[in-house]
């Protein structure tokens, strides 16, 4: 009898050991929300990659109790995802038209706030891009030219406008390659698969890229302004941390970081 009970106990222990890890993981998934304070998720255009990383790191030091996750991607994709109930509390778009549209559809908490003006640059790794001009791109010897997809990426639209204004749009057609977003465009140039790219100044000023080659700032008169804006989404309702982060973007500390990455700020000049 005792022996049989013992065997039964051993089996139970084995079963518990087997179930232990999944059980623990399941429990852990339920707990942190209650224990670790608020958690917010920020969706941001990929031109913000390096600047926002710094801003978030500073913000985390000031708010150690909460968790801020940032996802980078293309502005258009995030707009679609937010319409379909995407779990983002804040949305930073490289084109202010996207958050404004969400605001008009009642998906925003409060008005769209402009946070920066983006600039585009010519950047290359194999050539001295600071000596390059848009007109030089017409020369087939330059090779492949990377831009972001002009159909949905804000930086791609402005790149197309600038190339058209410079009168070289037709000439570069056969050598044009399109990145899905501005970060992939920079990556095409960084791997050497494209000679030159039209990328965001904020990416070209990142230390890793800046060390690899100069850049030429494209005249802002050649394209429509890259007005960028952000919103708090409906998901952020009642979240103190989300509101605090939105306010932090307006502080001098955050603005200084944006300025250092080449963004022009709304009420700066």
């Amino acid at each position, binding site marked *: 009898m005792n022996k049989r009970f013992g065997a039964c106990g051993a089996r139970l222990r084995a079963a518990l050991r087997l179930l232990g890890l999944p059980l623990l993981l399941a429990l852990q998934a339920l707990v942190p929300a209650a224990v670790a304070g608020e958690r917010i998720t920020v969706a941001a255009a990929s031109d913000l990659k390096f600047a926002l990383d710094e801003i978030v790191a500073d913000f985390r030091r000031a708010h150690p109790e909460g968790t801020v996750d940032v996802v980078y991607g293309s502005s258009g*994709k995030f707009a679609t995802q937010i319409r379909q109930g995407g779990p983002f509390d804040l949305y930073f778009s490289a084109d202010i038209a996207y958050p404004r549209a969400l605001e008009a559809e009642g998906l925003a908490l409060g008005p769209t706030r402009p946070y920066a003006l983006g600039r585009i640059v010519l950047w290359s790794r194999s050539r001295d891009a600071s000596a390059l001009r848009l007109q030089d791109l017409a020369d087939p010897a330059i090779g492949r030219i*990377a831009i972001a*997809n002009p159909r949905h990426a804000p930086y791609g639209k402005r790149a197309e406008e600038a190339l058209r204004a410079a009168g070289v749009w037709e000439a570069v057609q056969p050598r044009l390659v*399109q990145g899905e977003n501005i970060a992939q465009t920079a990556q095409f140039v960084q*791997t*050497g698969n*494209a000679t030159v790219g039209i990328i965001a100044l904020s990416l070209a000023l990142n230390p890793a890229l800046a060390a690899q080659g100069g850049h030429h700032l494209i005249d802002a008169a050649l394209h429509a302004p890259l007005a960028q804006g952000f919103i708090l989404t409906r998901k952020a309702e009642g979240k103190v941390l989300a509101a605090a982060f939105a306010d932090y973007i307006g502080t001098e500390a955050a603005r200084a970081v944006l300025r250092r990455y080449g963004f022009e700020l709304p009420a700066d000049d």
Partner: protein
Amino acid sequence: MPSLTSADWSAVWLTFKLATVSTVILLLVGTPIAWWLARTRSKWKGVVGAVVALPLVLPPTVIGFYLLVAMGPEGPVGRLTTALGIGLLPFSFAGLVVGSVIYSLPFVVQPVHNAFEAIGRRPLEVAATLRAGPWDSFFTVALPLARPGFVTATILGFAHTVGEFGVVLMIGGNIPDSTRVVSVAIYDHVEALEYAEAHWLSAGMLAFSFLVLLALYGRRRQAGGGLG
């Protein structure tokens, strides 16, 4: 009513072309590999089999990333193609063919390998006693007997290449008539909020994929379970 634009049609045609070229190359490359795998007693059999199966489990991003780096100007493949005067492969149709052949390799090798193994040694031994040379018995005995395996391999290789997305997104560069295949065109439509166009292409892909699988499973039922 919105329907497919001419840009969409050229993406459809390009996808068809890519899948056809890739499938032909896959059959040419995959058949000797499958034959070797089915016949060899080499200790390398396990290693080669595992390498061939890798694309089944690897994320397409791994293949895309390594291809982009390897085929770039500083990569080994990029140096070779530049030296041969072909130029660089990323952002070109040829580059997509290379990517597709790697990505779909197990879908062609495995059915053919299984078909060759199912034949066994006996028919070939009989052919040998009738004085058929190894090439002769391969083409007149092994290939016809393995026919169902080749049909499955062709269907799967073609369909899997049509369904490729991640690798193309990473090495394609979205160039009309060269690298903008249907899956990428759908992605672009969705990003640009053109849902009607995305629906047309997506529904087409859905119908195509269903018909392909129906053909495959219908055939298998007729063949009595047969070869996978």
